[in-house]
């Protein structure tokens, strides 16, 4: 052990109480940092997982991100072409040539896609009238992109596939209308078409609004009802790697020309809320460590004050200012290191305790464990920050110690 380190250790060991107090500050700071961080990060990941599981990774809709260019502008991109008073063509809304586009999308690796035609219809049953969203789907494809089938309370997607006049509704709507399996409802489109549909399945997602307003029927049937033969208005895409969504969406948009929105883009506001939440969380837990650093500052300043004579002796013996500074910096490093290690242990204990706590989230029927994130980067962050604040706190007293002039002390004695 170097003589500087030996002196540093002696200083701390001979001042057990202040050393322990400042250590406790760091230990609690690190432990609290970990407990809060693991809980916040855990719930964030839990939330994102739900988001990924329950919403389409990519939605391709029948819109263009930018208005279509005039052919003349496309032909002479450098030319001074300006086309005015353009009267847009009236076209049937929807994605054109969707079979070919679906084939292209499905040729991309690691994804499943399903075509959907979504529209508003009015359901009537036993004198009650209600506007709902009706999605025309291809059951075999929908299975690949949606968890809806798991939410069925009665019937199934297969039953829908087998019955061209079937409709699947949510339990909320069923309750409102007093519908049962096998009930027959009338569906009317804004264009005046009317179809008679039979309830072949019911689902409960837990989201009340969804369960009251969303209904599903076969794509062909909905195309007929909405008078948009051979059209769909979106592709729902699910990826093996949800985090590739942004890139895959860009590829699809590039190729098809239709607006492709990844879940990341769609929930950008949520993501920024999470970011702000993390910022707040890390500021608060870091502030605790900064406060703990004041304890270290206090302890080391006191030692420097008590030890001015020793410092004067050491310097008169030939210790450099640098040696003296290192002695007190080493004390900060030791407090930071030991505090971090004990803090990590205590923090892991707290995390294990938290992980055993069970809660009942709103809307859920089952108890779940608190989501705890165990990622190692939190330990590095907590220990690194604790160490940095400890060294920072030791720096000022260490610098002061390095500046002690032996003569000043000797004159004071003589």
């Amino acid at each position, binding site marked *: 052990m*170097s003589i500087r380190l030996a002196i540093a250790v*002696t*200083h701390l060991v*001979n001042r057990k109480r202040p050393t322990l107090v400042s250590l406790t500050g760091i230990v609690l700071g690190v432990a609290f940092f970990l407990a809060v961080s693991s809980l916040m990060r855990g719930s964030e990941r839990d939330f994102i997982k739900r988001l990924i599981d329950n919403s389409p990774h990519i939605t391709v809709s029948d819109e263009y991100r930018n208005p279509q260019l005039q052919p003349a502008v496309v032909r002479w991109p450098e030319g001074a072409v300006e086309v005015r008073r353009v009267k847009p063509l009236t076209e049937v809304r929807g994605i054109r040539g969707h079979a070919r586009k679906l084939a292209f999308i499905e040729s991309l690796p690691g994804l499943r896609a399903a075509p959907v035609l979504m529209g508003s219809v009015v359901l009537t049953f036993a004198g009650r009238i209600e506007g709902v969203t009706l999605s025309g789907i291809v059951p075999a494809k929908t299975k690949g992109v949606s968890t809806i089938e798991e939410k069925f309370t009665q019937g199934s997607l297969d039953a829908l596939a087998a019955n061209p006049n079937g409709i699947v509704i949510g339990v909320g709507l069923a309750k409102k209308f007093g519908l049962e399996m096998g009930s027959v409802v009338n569906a009317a489109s804004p264009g005046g078409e009317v179809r008679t549909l039979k309830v072949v399945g019911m689902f409960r997602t837990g989201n009340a609004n969804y369960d009251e307003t969303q209904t599903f029927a076969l794509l062909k049937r909905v195309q007929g009802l909405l008078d948009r033969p051979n059209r769909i208005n979106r592709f729902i895409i699910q990826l093996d790697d949800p985090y590739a969504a942004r890139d895959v969406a860009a590829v699809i948009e590039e190729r098809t020309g239709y607006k492709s929105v990844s879940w990341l883009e769609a929930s950008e506001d949520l993501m920024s809320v999470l970011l702000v939440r993390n910022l707040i969380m890390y500021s608060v837990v870091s502030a605790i460590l900064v406060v703990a650093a004041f304890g270290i500052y206090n302890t080391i300043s006191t030692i420097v004050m008590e030890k001015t004579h020793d410092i004067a002796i050491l*310097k*008169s013996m*030939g210790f*450099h200012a640098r040696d003296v500074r290192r002695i007190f910096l080493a004390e900060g490093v030791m407090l930071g290191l030991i505090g971090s290690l004990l803090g990590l242990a205590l923090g892991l204990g707290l995390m294990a305790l938290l992980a055993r706590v069970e809660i009942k989230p709103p809307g859920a029927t089952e108890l779940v464990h608190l989501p705890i994130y165990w990622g190692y980067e939190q330990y590095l962050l907590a220990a690194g920050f604790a160490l940095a604040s400890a060294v920072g706190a030791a720096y000022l007293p260490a610098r002061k110690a390095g500046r002690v002039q032996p*003569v000043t002390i000797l004159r004071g004695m003589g």
Partner: protein
Amino acid sequence: MRPILAAERLGRVLPGEIPVTLVQDVTLAVERGEFVVIMGPSGSGKSSLLYLLGLLDTPTSGRVLLDGQDTSGFGEDELAATRLRKLGFVFQFHFLLAEFSVLDNVLLPLRRLGVLTEDAARRRARELLDQLGLSEHGHKRPYQISGGQRQRVAIARALANDPPLILADEPTGNLDTRAAANVRQILRDLTRAFGKTVIAVTHDLTFAGAADRRIGIVDGRIDPDWRA
């Protein structure tokens, strides 16, 4: 032979609203192996002169030559390195580190210099303690031994890195007659048997009597006529 230590027109003024002159115009040369004492009335500037000679303080005028080398251009690092290798201090108030054992106190300069291995350093420290009659006390803390013993520990520590020059400020100042005689004998032996040079400030006439030369300081200047 050139002197081990020389001062040329050395002066030290403490700056301030009313500047205080501690030392002025001191020129002296000390030969290798010499035992020199500095004497003078209280407050005359003896300690101040010793700090200048020992490179603990920087003069405001003149210069100190150590082994023929001008030290006036030395930076903080060079000064520290020189103190570590060439100078040993013994102060009036023993100045041992209270948290370290007697042995560890003697080991401090050895470990800082780092030339000897830990084992060799310990052997050397024990040897020094033996020579100074402290073999029994190595493991004790400074507060567990007497004043005279502490002064001898301080001497052992000053000798640790085998410096050619020992500076002592009233080393017998608060010792009884017997302990003082012991310390005096040791310092004298260092010059006689080991060729060390000793410069000591003292009020003790018996101590002064053992020296090769006495330098009188009055009001910060050398006073050749001064007699205790």
